[in-house]
């Protein structure tokens, strides 16, 4: 009909093939969108807690090293930056280790899922479960284009589209049908392909052994619902090095927390704030420079709020400060709880005595992480974030009082000495990480393995010339 015609009418310069992963190729047809997309390479903006600047989160807050002791995140954790860096950053992070080649390294192939438009291409070529199989390093030469057009768009119609099976399956698990999503919902759902809590399920019937990407939404998306989900299947991401608690790592539940805020309630989508319209030479287009809206208040906020930019930024910062205040309190208690639990083990506590305590630590830290890991949550949904932090403060109290009594029973009735963790280095030394080795191994990997990956990819892609229209 005419409406659709109007909406998606354009004269393509090139014929973009269905699984074209190279953003520059799409850029031939859509220069404005591409040019703005390319700006996600800019790393000059820093806000109170966000922005595109590289921010070493462990350095800013060494407590985290203790919270994640025994898990990859204690080695290296930076705040996310522009989509342009998705591939580069997964190469760089110490969490992915220094694989020497295929089959090596700590991480599964599933890690690639949210980093590149090569992913839908590969899933199409090999199958979904097949994509998730094997090591991360196995696909190093296949996944090289950072997040881009083919992740969100249909190459024929340019319509927004869902390219990640995990989101579709998650909707199914909730008894919902994602194909019924409205256009406005799609403007958030394309983001919900990645900005969500996830885990790797190795026990899916028929796919045993494959770290299959799953969003734990079956019972709902609240912190309690997902906790219940994980408790029921007795899942844990890792066992804590100090406390031995069976831990959960919350990963950026951005979409889930956003949904509980007033903007979602009023139908405001992710794209409304992170991809507002922009005018250039009398032409309007969607700004694909996805970033902190605080670097773009005029377009991102003032369309709806005719407040001064300063005031709007201050509104955001105020909510973030208030959330951080209680987050840091909870965090401090969690650090204590892990170290107190270690003390109890050291003094001879039994599994039985520790069981409830460890469960409390698991639940309290899960809540802390749920509130902390989605970097936007303290603005997207300040009231829910505060509620979750409060519930974490409740649980950690219960656990620590049990610990105090247990320690007293074991002969230690006094505050437990805390290590010096005033810097990232000190904290990492305390948990016994050999950072020098990790870093030098990584260097070797980046200097030897990665260049080969990129070279092979170049060769491969050289054969995929797009068809130019005349």
């Amino acid at each position, binding site marked *: 009909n005419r409406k659709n015609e109007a909406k998606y009418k354009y004269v393509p310069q090139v014929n973009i093939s269905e699984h074209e992963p190279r953003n520059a190729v799409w850029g031939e047809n859509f220069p404005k969108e591409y040019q703005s997309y390319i700006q996600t390479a800019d790393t000059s903006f820093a806000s109170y807690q966000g922005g595109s600047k590289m921010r070493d989160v462990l350095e800013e807050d060494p407590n985290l090293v203790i919270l994640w002791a025994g898990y990859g995140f204690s080695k290296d954790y930076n705040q996310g930056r522009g989509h342009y860096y998705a591939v580069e950053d997964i190469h760089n992070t110490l969490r992915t280790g220094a694989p020497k080649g295929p089959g090596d390294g700590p991480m599964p192939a599933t890690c690639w899922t949210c980093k590149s438009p090569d992913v839908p291409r590969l899933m199409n070529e090999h199958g979904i479960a097949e994509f998730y199989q094997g090591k991360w390093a196995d696909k190093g030469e296949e996944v090289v284009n950072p997040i881009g057009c083919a992740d969100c768009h249909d190459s024929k119609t340019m319509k927004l589209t869902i390219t990640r099976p995990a989101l579709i399956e998650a909707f199914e698990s909730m008894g919902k049908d994602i194909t019924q999503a*409205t256009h406005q919902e799609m403007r958030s759902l394309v983001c919900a392909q990645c900005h969500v809590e996830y885990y790797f399920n190795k026990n899916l019937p028929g796919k045993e052994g494959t770290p299959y990407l799953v969003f734990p939404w079956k019972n709902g998306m609240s912190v309690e619902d997902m906790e219940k989900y994980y408790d029921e299947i007795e899942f844990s991401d890792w066992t804590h090095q100090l406390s031995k608690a069976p831990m959960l790592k919350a990963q950026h539940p951005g979409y889930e927390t956003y949904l509980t805020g007033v903007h979602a309630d009023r139908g405001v989508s992710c794209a409304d704030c992170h991809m507002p319209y922009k005018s250039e030479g009398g032409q309007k287009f969607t700004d694909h420079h996805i970033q902190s809206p605080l670097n773009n208040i005029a377009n991102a906020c003032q369309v709806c709020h*005719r407040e001064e930019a300063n005031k709007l930024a201050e509104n955001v910062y105020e909510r973030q400060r208030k959330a951080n205040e209680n987050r840091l309190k909870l965090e401090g208690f969690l650090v204590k709880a892990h170290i107190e639990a270690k003390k109890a083990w050291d003094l001879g506590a039994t599994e039985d005595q520790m069981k409830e305590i460890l469960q409390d630590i698991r639940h309290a830290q899960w809540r802390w992480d749920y509130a902390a890991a989605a970097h936007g949550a303290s603005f997207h949904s300040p009231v829910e974030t505060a509620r979750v932090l409060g519930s974490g403060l409740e649980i950690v109290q219960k656990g620590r009082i049990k610990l105090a009594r247990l320690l007293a029973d074991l002969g230690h009735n006094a505050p437990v000495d805390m290590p010096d963790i005033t810097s990232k280095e000190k904290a990492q030394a305390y948990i016994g990480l050999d950072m020098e080795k990790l870093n030098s191994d990584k260097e070797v990997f980046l200097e030897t393995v990665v260049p080969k990956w990129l070279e092979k990819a170049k060769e491969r892609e050289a054969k995929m010339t797009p068809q130019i229209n005349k």
Partner: protein
Amino acid sequence: MLKNILPQKHSNWRATAVFLIAIMMGLGLFMAKEAEIVSYMSDDPKACVNCHVMTPVYNSWMHSSHREWASCNDCHVPHDNIVNTYYFKAKDGLFHASVFTLRAEPEVMFMREASQEVVQDNCIRCHVQQVTQTKYDGWIETHGANRTDRQCWECHREVPHGRIHGISTIKHNIAPIPTDTEQTVIPEWLEQKINQDKQSPHEE
């Protein structure tokens, strides 16, 4: 005061504005005093309440969603260019003042057509992004077709003066009157008592 009213020095239409104001003043001291006509040039909504017939609209605006965002002139005076702004103001000022002085104000006023156009333009000036972008579909349904051939306030009938119009619709006003500075919010008796207390600390 004139400094605030007049456009920037050196702008070439400053003369026009001065000229228009001069005409207005020429209407006579009596009228100027009666109607606080000069204050009509100000952007302060209180300027409009200098005429009691404007108090009902002032008060309804005061209780509206727009109080914190849009003053009278934001809606009722053109903002397309600054010459127009002052020309329209002066013209309107003269018209209102004459009617007021003659005590010919109707019970229920209506915007003249020229004013309506001005207001409609101003609604759009502020809300253009909200009502024209298809991307806000999810937030504001159905603005596409409707907005162009109708007046905004056909639907948004509460904006900003409410549904009831007319100069007797608000009987008792406690709208502030800008020239009225003799009173403070602390009643005299209380000020006295507090001062008494301060001067001679109470002794038991």
